[in-house]
Every structure is written in structure tokens, then in C-alpha cells.
């Protein structure tokens, strides 16, 4: 920490350091950009930890009922389109790649590359949601949406309905987070277009990236849990 006697100009290589100390991006209550960045990173990871527990409640419910009703859950799971599910998984993984490349572009001060990769990330996110929409539509058509019009062949359709309730709740919550992610990306894109980011400061890009990857990770678990319950029967 600098004390009263420290003069940034007196230190070799101090220009970048001084720039970091007096950067317009530095908030007044922080000592330097490094401290500010560390705080932002910790804050975002803490928020992601809360998201793990938020989704976790639904995972707990799912775990219980899958243990209780393995056969019905397996049957209901088989009615999901595994091709669309795995394609969507690849789409999201691709979007994580483009997001990581976007952060890299920001860190190396490449404004146009950053914007391209953010746009690609958003495109892939939209593709994901589109495919999800197709799947939801398919469920509606087959009367697999919980509610008065629900219909499922078998001895215990009400337990199949429980599966689909969890399916819609979990993928719905995930999709909601994706939409928020797309909103974040829009803001980042606008900020990048306005030239707000540089190699010295691109924290919002990185933090949004963390959020985006997290949403990808949720899907990495949703896919096997919902789609791959019992594909070999």
C-alpha cells in the first residue's frame, strides 16, 4: 500500500503503474486497479456460489424423485429429443469458447475482435434458446406439459408429470438465466463499441464471461441428468 512518502514517478517503469493508479476506471474507494479487479472477481465468484445453491434446491428435488421413481423418470426422459439436447450442449460449449476468446481479445486490446466474439456468443446463445423453444413446442404438442392437458402413457402418469415439472422448472430457470446473459452481453457489446475497454481495464467483460460460463456449466449437468436417465432400455 502506498504511504505518504511514495511517489509513483520515482519508481522505474512507473508510467503504467501511475496510469493504473489514475485511470478513469479506478473507483475512488479503491487504492489501485489491481485491488479493484480482485474485489470484482471475488464478488462475482461469490455471486456464482449463490447461484449454485439456488439451482441446487431443484437439483435436490430432482435427486430425491429420481431415486424414488427411477423407471418412470427413465421413461419420461426417453421422450426428450437426445439429438436436440446434445446439439444444444455443443452449442453452449461453443458459446463458452467464443466467450473465452472475447475476454482474450479484451485483454489484448483488440476492440473489433472483442465485438465479433461477443456477437458470436450471443448468436450461439440465441440458437440454444431457439432449439429449446423447438423442444418445448414438441412437449406441448405431445401433451407433456404439466397441467390439465397433461397426458402420459403408463401406470403412473402423475409421476411422469413430476419429471416434466422438474424438467420445465430446471430448464426454464436455466433459460431465464441465459436471457439475462444475453442482456449482459448486449451491454458489453455496447460498451465495447463505445471504446470503454482497454487492455488496462476490461473487468466487465471478464465478469460477464464468468457468468456466461457458469450458465454453461449448469447445462453441462442438466443434459445428462434430464436426457440420459435411461437410454438403453
Amino acid at each position, binding site marked *: 500500500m502506498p504511504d505518504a512518502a511514495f511517489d509513483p514517478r520515482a519508481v522505474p517503469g512507473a508510467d503504467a503503474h501511475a496510469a493504473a493508479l489514475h485511470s478513469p476506471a479506478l473507483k475512488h474507494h479503491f487504492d489501485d486497479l489491481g485491488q479493484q*479487479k480482485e474485489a470484482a472477481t471475488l464478488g462475482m465468484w461469490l455471486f*456464482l456460489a449463490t447461484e449454485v445453491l439456488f439451482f441446487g434446491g431443484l437439483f435436490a428435488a430432482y435427486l430425491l424423485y429420481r431415486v424414488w421413481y427411477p423407471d418412470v423418470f427413465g421413461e419420461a426422459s426417453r421422450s426428450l429429443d437426445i439429438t436436440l439436447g446434445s446439439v444444444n450442449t455443443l452449442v453452449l460449449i461453443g458459446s463458452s469458447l467464443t466467450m473465452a476468446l472475447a475476454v482474450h481479445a479484451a485483454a489484448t486490446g483488440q476492440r473489433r475482435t472483442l465485438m465479433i466474439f461477443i456477437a458470436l456468443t450471443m448468436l450461439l446463445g440465441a440458437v440454444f434458446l431457439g432449439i429449446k423453444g423447438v423442444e418445448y413446442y414438441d412437449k406441448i404438442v405431445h401433451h407433456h406439459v404439466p397441467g390439465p392437458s397433461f397426458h402420459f402413457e403408463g401406470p403412473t402418469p402423475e409421476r411422469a408429470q413430476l419429471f416434466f415439472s422438474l424438467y420445465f422448472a430446471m430448464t426454464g430457470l436455466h433459460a431465464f438465466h441465459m436471457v439475462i446473459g444475453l442482456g449482459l452481453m448486449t451491454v458489453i457489446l455496447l460498451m465495447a463499441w463505445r471504446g470503454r475497454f482497454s487492455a488496462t481495464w476490461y473487468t466487465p467483460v471478464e465478469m460477464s*464471461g464468468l457468468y456466461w460460463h457458469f450458465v454453461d456449466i449448469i447445462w453441462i449437468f442438466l443434459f445428462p441428468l434430464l436426457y440420459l436417465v435411461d437410454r438403453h432400455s
Partner: protein
Amino acid sequence: MSHVIPRRIYYVIFAVLVVLTLVTTEVAFFDFGLMNPVIALTIAVVKATVVVLYFMHMRYSSRLTMVIGAAGIFWLGILLALTMSDYLARGAGTY
């Protein structure tokens, strides 16, 4: 400031993730009994781990960041384990 990681690493991780996704999908069609969910979840954990370590830069972050990430998962573990400890033990014994 933070590390700038060579892009090559991202491409490698991407390839790993794609391969694992294809593997987990294929394996699901074979009957390994109780091992099916174990395999599927193990693959998912590996995928999530590489995303966290490399895409999310956890590998290059402070130890405190790692502790926070681990804490989130560990706490989810508490929720799942202790809840299931009730359900799995129901009906056991003479109560």
C-alpha cells in the same frame, strides 16, 4: 493484472468438451447398470472442472477464488447429502 492465456489452450479445452459430450451421449445407450449415472455425472464433473479451471481462469486465480468456488459446491453437497440421509434411511430399523 490477470494472466492472458494463449488461445491455443481454449481450443484444446473446447475439443475436450466436445469429445466428452459425444462420449457421454454414446455411453448412455449401453447398459452399465448402476454405473450409467455414475459415468454420466463423472463426465459432467470433468467437463465442468475444465470449464472452471481454464475458461473461467480458476487455474490462474488467487487461492481465495478457489476456496469460494469449492465452498459453493461443498455447500450444495451438504444440502444434497443430509437431505438424502433422511430419505435413504427411512423405513430402516424398527421405528
